[in-house]
């Protein structure tokens, strides 16, 4: 996921914490957070995945004026072939296989991050239920407004020609 400017906002962090079912006040309450070892609100450990919101080319978000591949008056269409980089995730028959994070520090509201993604390794193997699985790794570096490395993310996406049943 590439994003030139990923502003970390407190409302976004709150929504993310709610979505993962975590009521920890460290994610929402500055007064509480001030009493903790951390000393300020932080984002949950997987929050940087939400940089997708700030990736102008992210393929899994409907874009104004463009046809979306989900259902409407029809059931939808086979998704466009996935191109470009992504920290895992996938479209259509592409799925997220692995995700790894290294935290140099924890993200906090007020940070303005940038995310630069580079391709990593790629490999193939036979699926347990037939077909060839193609894996592709990408590495994303999240840096803050001072250019300091905050999080290093490594994602692996997998594609197959068949519907993946938990493989």
């Amino acid at each position, binding site marked *: 996921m590439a994003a030139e400017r990923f502003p970390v906002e407190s409302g*976004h962090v709150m*929504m*993310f914490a*709610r*979505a*993962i*079912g*975590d009521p*920890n006040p*460290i994610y929402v309450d500055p007064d509480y957070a001030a009493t*903790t*070892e*951390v000393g300020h609100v*932080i984002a*949950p*450990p*997987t929050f940087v*995945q*939400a*940089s*997708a*919101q*700030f*990736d102008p080319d*992210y393929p*899994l*978000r*409907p874009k104004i004026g463009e046809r979306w*591949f*989900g*259902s409407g008056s029809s*059931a*939808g*269409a*086979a998704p466009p072939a996935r191109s470009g980089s992504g920290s*895992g*995730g*996938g*479209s*259509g*028959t592409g*799925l*997220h*296989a*692995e*995700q*790894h*994070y*290294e*935290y140099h520090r*924890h993200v906090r509201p007020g940070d303005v991050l940038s995310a630069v993604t580079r391709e990593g390794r790629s490999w193939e193997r036979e699926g347990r239920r037939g077909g060839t699985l193609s894996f592709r790794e990408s590495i994303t570096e999240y840096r803050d407004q001072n250019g300091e490395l905050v999080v290093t993310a*490594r994602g692996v996406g997998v594609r197959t020609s068949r*519907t993946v*049943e*938990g493989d």
Partner: protein
Amino acid sequence: MALSRTQLTVGDTHEQVVVDGLTRTQIVQYAGASGDYNPLHTDEVFATQVAGYPSVFAHGMLTMGLTGHMLTDYVGDGRLVEYGGRFMAQVWPGDTLTARSEVTGFDTRNGSDCVELAVRTVNQSGDEVFRGTAVARIDP
């Protein structure tokens, strides 16, 4: 509440139910927060009729986020140094997930004491849906 080296032993476990009966709405909530609106996760019509799945299913990253809740409750806020893993099986609406960590060793990172953890999340049938590792800073 941070963990302390003196209180920890290899083999120690911590376990938490991180979602009890996952709803489609929570999957949509995660789509909205994360920005991943893939209709495989958000659109039952697409997921069943076009993609051929029995229903929508959770983002792998939702499972990892739910599992992270267990980890941060265990190791304390701002203590994770590394967290990662593999998505082993799909998570479906109605699933109840239990996330578990086990102490596998100790190390130091940048001069700080750290605990190494194996992480495993299973559904109500005991099927593994996420398997990973984490490293967290601990007190001496």
